[in-house]
């Protein structure tokens, strides 16, 4: 029968169909190869950092400050670890309400030109090189009050805010209009709708976006060079003073030219990756349990 013939790959359409199959197979192959390539690159970076970093990474690395003489072995980055948590923590406290508030405003209240201008501003902020952000805070703050953890947190907050605004707004935009209307139609006020319906619905995505911003801030070095400067001598927990961070210590040790310092830099890089990974996993778990428990 003619139909059977067609189904078995015969008939007038067969050559075109075969071409399509070939193209489908080759494109699938190309995309798979790209994916494997990118995955391999990522694994390579992680494994390389881990292999290099594991040498100098020991308990002392997490509890000691760097040795007085950077060419010595031993010592650690405890002041940088504490500094990173403190400065990024402050930057998060600063940027989280600001970023989420701005995203809510953009998504729910701003219309027409106001919204367009605000989006442009966040886009421009996203595109500003962070060294420029650092220079801005340097001119505005450091010249007046000196290097400090606060100045660093401020600079990092400026880096984080547009990231959080963008991520949160995208997530809020993904909440179907139906859901919002369902709440309004029950006689729920707009503010309560935002707090109790929209934000919880978008929660998982918002948490992911905020985590990306935090991870980014954890690794930022340039703006901190110009604002908190660094402090390799002792553990400084007072954010009114110049402080160290992991990223600053990695930068300082890696560029110093001493093998032992470079080993510490590798260990610091591994620590940084581990911290970001741990924070991301914790955030995912929090997002999941809180979504299911209700």
């Amino acid at each position: 029968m003619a139909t059977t013939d067609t189904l078995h790959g015969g008939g007038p359409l067969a050559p075109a169909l075969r071409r399509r199959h070939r193209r489908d197979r080759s494109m699938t192959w190309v995309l798979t190869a790209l994916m494997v390539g990118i995955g391999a690159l990522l694994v390579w970076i992680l494994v390389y950092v881990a292999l290099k970093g594991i040498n100098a990474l020991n308990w002392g690395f997490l509890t000691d400050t760097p040795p007085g003489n950077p060419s010595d072995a031993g010592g650690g980055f405890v002041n940088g670890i504490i500094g990173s948590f403190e400065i990024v923590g402050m930057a998060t406290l600063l940027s989280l309400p600001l970023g989420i508030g701005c995203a809510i405003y953009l998504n729910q209240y701003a219309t027409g030109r106001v919204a367009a201008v605000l989006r442009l501003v966040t886009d421009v902020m996203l595109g500003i090189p962070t060294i420029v952000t650092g220079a801005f805070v340097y001119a505005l703050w450091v010249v007046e009050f000196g290097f400090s953890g606060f100045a660093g947190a401020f600079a990092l907050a400026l880096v984080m805010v547009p990231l959080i605004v963008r991520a949160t707004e995208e997530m809020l935009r993904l909440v179907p209009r139906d859901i919002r209307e369902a709440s309004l139609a029950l006689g729920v006020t707009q503010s309560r709708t935002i707090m109790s319906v929209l934000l919880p619905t978008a929660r998982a995505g918002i948490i992911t976006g905020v985590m990306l911003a935090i991870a980014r801030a954890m690794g930022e070095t340039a703006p901190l060079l110009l604002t908190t400067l660094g402090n390799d001598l002792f553990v400084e927990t007072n954010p009114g003073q110049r402080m160290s961070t992991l990223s600053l210590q990695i930068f300082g040790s890696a560029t110093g030219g001493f093998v032992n310092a470079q080993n510490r830099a590798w260990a610091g890089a591994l620590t940084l990756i581990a911290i970001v990974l741990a924070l991301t996993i914790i955030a995912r778990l929090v997002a999941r349990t809180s979504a299911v428990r209700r």
Partner: protein
Amino acid sequence: MTTPERPDVIDRPSESGSATNGTAADTPAPVSESAGHGPARRMDVIDLNAGFGERTIIEGINLKVEPNAVTALIGPSGCGKSTLLRCLNAMHRTATNAFVSGEILLDGVDINARGVDPVLVRRRVGMVFQRPNPFPTMSIYDNVAAGLRLTSGTRAGRHKFDDTVERALRQADLWAEVKDRLRTMGGALSGGQQQRLCIARALAVEPEVLLMDEPCSALDPISTAKIEETIMSLRERYTIVIVTHNMQQAARVSDTTAFMTILEAGQPGALVETGPTSSIFDTPSNEVTGAYVSGRFG
């Protein structure tokens, strides 16, 4: 009829929903009880125009929505049925550029008048949407309790709304199917169950009027039949307005039918004819209505 002389009952900021009206003795139908415990309310639409920006969607609508009855809005796609429905709970106004003129009276009070809070209007005029839209982060229980929980100022206990949730789910004919899994997610239900969940959610806040925007258009015939049964049993307590594309459905569930259409291309939608459902379908007085209900439209 045009301007309510008594104070607006809906603009009271009282959270309890007990919009105690001026208890003047001459008030014909005192709006004094808490929402929902009183009789169903009537709505009157007078010379209503509505649309977005420069574009008028519906024009010159006059409609009486009788209490304890089901009013069906029928008509071809794009004739403004949904817009009219969304005007009745001030939902239309939430869109950017939206405009409304004319009057929509809820028991004589214009819901678009100055000082009338649309939020409080919506607590008395509930709505069920075309597509089932349960809150995805909430359990079945929390979905039904959402209206009460989110409109009350206080944090409520886990079991505070047990009675209300059961009543609303029974009214929506869903109780038997979900009573053993009230704490599971509402989104896990089937489409028909989700829509009945949405009806239960709307009923839980005890509105006086219930608006339904093509509530069955996304559902299979069996779910549709269940929801139609629900609608007919709700008629005793509520004023119901239902938009439907399904003329058999209008004929089955409604007491009054209003036919809307666009009389000329490019014109806004208009209400052509309103009347008892049987006469709209059997002896329509307007020939356009007759053509539509008999399937000879266009």
